[in-house]
C-alpha cells in the first residue's frame, strides 16, 4: 500500500471564528475540514466553555504543504492579533492523495 505525504494543519481557536475559518480554508484550497469542540488554556487565560463566548474549537485540515502554509499565514495575519488562536503543522501520510 502506497502512502503520500500531506500536511496536517491544526487550528485551535475561539468558537466564534469557526464559520470564518471554514470559509477561509475552503477559499484558500482546502478540500475539507474536521472540527472538534474542545476547551483549554493558554496565554489569554482559561477557556473552559462555561458559556457561549468561552467555547473553543480544534479544526483539522489535511492538505498540500502549500495550501497549509497559505491558510496558516492567513490565519496568523487575520486573527491571531485579536483572538485566542493556536496553530501547528504536522507531516502526515494519506492513501488517496487526490482527496486532500
Amino acid at each position, binding site marked *: 500500500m502506497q502512502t503520500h505525504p500531506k500536511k496536517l494543519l491544526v487550528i485551535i481557536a*475561539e468558537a466564534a471564528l469557526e464559520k*470564518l475559518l471554514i470559509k477561509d480554508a475552503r477559499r484558500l484550497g482546502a478540500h475539507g475540514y474536521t472540527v472538534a469542540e474542545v476547551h483549554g488554556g493558554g496565554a489569554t*487565560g482559561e477557556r473552559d*466553555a*462555561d458559556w457561549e*463566548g468561552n467555547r473553543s474549537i480544534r479544526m483539522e485540515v489535511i492538505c498540500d504543504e502549500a495550501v497549509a502554509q497559505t491558510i496558516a499565514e492567513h490565519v496568523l495575519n487575520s486573527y491571531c492579533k*485579536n483572538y485566542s488562536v493556536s496553530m501547528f503543522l504536522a507531516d502526515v501520510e494519506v492513501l488517496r492523495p487526490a482527496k486532500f
Partner: protein
Amino acid sequence: MDPVVLFFLLGAFARLAKSDLRLPEALYETLSIYLLLAIGLKGGVEIAKHSLGAVAPQALAVIAMGALLPLVAFPVLRIFAKLSHADAGNIAAHYGSVSVVTFAVGIAFLTRQQVAYESYFPLFVALLEVPGIVVGILLAKMGRDAMAADAGSSPARAVRWGPLLHEVLLGKSVVLLVGGLIIGWIAGPQGIDPFKGLFFDLFRGVLALFLLEMGLVAAGRIADLKSRWLFMLGFGTLMPICFAVIGIVLGKALGLSVGGMTLLGLLAASASYIAAPTATRIAIPEANPGLSIGLALGVTFPFNITLGMPLYHAIAQRLN
C-alpha cells in the same frame, strides 16, 4: 429578595468556593432556548388581546431608546474611562441591548409583589435586542475611521454590515423571541393551552435552574475584574441606574403603569450577554471581550437582579 435569586447566589457560591458543580453546556443552551421561546409565547398571547394600534407608538419610542442608550454610554467610556473606540463601542453595544433573563427575574419580582404591568412587554424585549448593538458597533467603527484618518493611514477593515445585520436580526435570541411572539399571537389563548404545561407552568423553575448556571458563570467572570475593578464596579452599577432612570421616565411619558415603568427601567439598565457578545466579537475584533463580559455578566447582571430591581421599582413608584 425573590427566592429565584437564591439560586443565583448558590451558583455563585459554588463557583467561588471552587466546587466541581457544573451544568452541562447542552443544559445551558436548552434552558436559554426555553426561556426565550416561553417569554415570546406569553407575550404573543397577550398581544393577541390588544390592538396593535395602541402599542405601535410605544414600540417606536422603545426602539428609539435602544438606539440612544449607547450614545450616552459611549462618551462616558471614552472620556472618564479613557477606553479605546473599540472597547467603548463594544461596551455601549452590550448596554444598549437587553438581557432577557434579567427581564424574566423582573417579571418574577413584580408577580411576587403583585404589581401589574403591560402584558405585551415581551414585544419590547424583542425590539430592544438589536438597535443598541447596531449603534454600538457604529460608534466603534466611526471612531476607528476617524483615528485612521487622523493618522493619515487607510481606514481599518470596514465592518461588513450585511452579514452583521443578518447575524443580529437572525441571531437565536431574536428568532426565538419573535418566533414565540408570532406563534403565541397566531395561536391565541386557546391555541396555546396545550403548551402551557411546558412553557408556562415550569417557567419559574426553569428560570431558577438557569440562574443557578448564571451564578456559576457570573462568578467565573470575576477574574476579569482584576485589573480595573474600580472602574468596572463603578460603571457596572452606576450606568445601569442612570439608564434605569431614563427608561422609567420614558415609561411615564408613554403612560405605562408603575410595573411597566419599572420593567422599562430594568430593560434599559440590563446588558446583553447573548446577542451582543456574539455580534461584536466579529464586528469589533480589537475590543477586549473580557472587559464587556466582565461588566455585563460579572457586575451588572448580579447587581440588577439583587439590588437594582427593587431600587428601580422604588424609583418608578416615586416618579409615578
